């Protein structure tokens, strides 16, 4: 029995290391935690966003804290002000890794507001 457990452990540890090593390194922009801890957000951000979008569009309840606009404002890269422009961008990086296509940014702005304002001036 002991042998089996130790064998399993030996198999699992490198596996855990391997997944950790492959996980995408993201450009988190300004970063910081304003809603929940990162692990919870990785699993559940889509539920927050889908709930917020219906409340905001249909009822006019605009909870700024969990709005997509607010996410982009902090998590857009400090280099190019975008959450999808590069392979390691905050949204694109993970979604590429997980092979989940997002179409949020076909309509929603993927850039920080200041970057868009600068572009208008040009």
């Amino acid at each position, binding site marked *: 029995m002991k042998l089996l457990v130790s064998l399993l452990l030996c198999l699992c540890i490198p596996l855990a290391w391997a997944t950790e090593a492959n996980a995408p390194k993201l450009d988190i922009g300004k970063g910081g935690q304003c809603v929940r801890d990162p692990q919870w957000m990785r699993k559940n951000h889509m539920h927050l966003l889908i709930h917020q979008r219906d409340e905001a569009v249909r009822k*006019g309840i605009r*909870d700024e804290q969990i709005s997509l*606009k607010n996410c982009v404002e902090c998590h857009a890269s400090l280099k190019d002000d975008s959450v999808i422009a590069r392979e390691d961008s905050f949204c694109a990086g993970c979604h590429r890794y997980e092979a989940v296509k997002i179409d949020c940014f076909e*309509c929603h*702005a993927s850039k920080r507001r200041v970057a868009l304002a600068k572009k208008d001036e040009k």
Partner: protein
Amino acid sequence: MSDLDTQRRQFLKTSLGAAAVAIAPGMLLFDTAQGKTEAASSKVRWGMLIDTAQCKTGCNDCVTACNKENGLSGGTLPTDSQWMRKIDIKDISNGHETSLPMMCQHCEEPPCVDVCPTGASFKRADGIVLVDKHRCIGCRYCMMACPYKARSFVHEPLHDQNPDVPRGKGTVESCTMCVHRIDKGQQPACAQACPNKAILFGNLNDANSEIAQKLRSVASVQVRADLQLNPGIRYQGL
């Protein structure tokens, strides 16, 4: 009751009080950082009164402001989005000319909402007619149903939209009465931009509002009143 119990009770009371005092300001700050958390109310009905006597032929300021606010290209091809357009009409019997802006009339009984197969077209509780683009499949029934030709379809992919006004290819869109501004307590961009103050925006349900008082005192019409859609946009001097 033992002395120990009383002491414990006293301790709990004071610590609870202290905790409340410590947390309360934080909660207040938290609330103000949340944005608008109450839903649009059906006690309000947003509307506009457009004074055509003050609307000048050739002036396009409201349309320009609308385009800028909502990130529209400003093109006037059939494939370009136009949320608001200026119309010049002439009475051929006497040559009297009138100029007026035409856009979504935010009907109380909107035909676009009646025909929408997915529930994407909807009327918010405060009377603003909107497209929920998350549900829009781009079938364009609403565009055919609208008697005011107020809706546009987005034909091409878009980039760098205004963060407050998401727009995208394959969906229908129209005047939102600048709902993102209204929710912040501001006026629609067109009403603010009009140099002659020809567009009066306000709450039709509030008897004391400027718009309700003016509607009571001057003659106004609904465009295509025969359809009995009860639009929220009214015209004076038409």
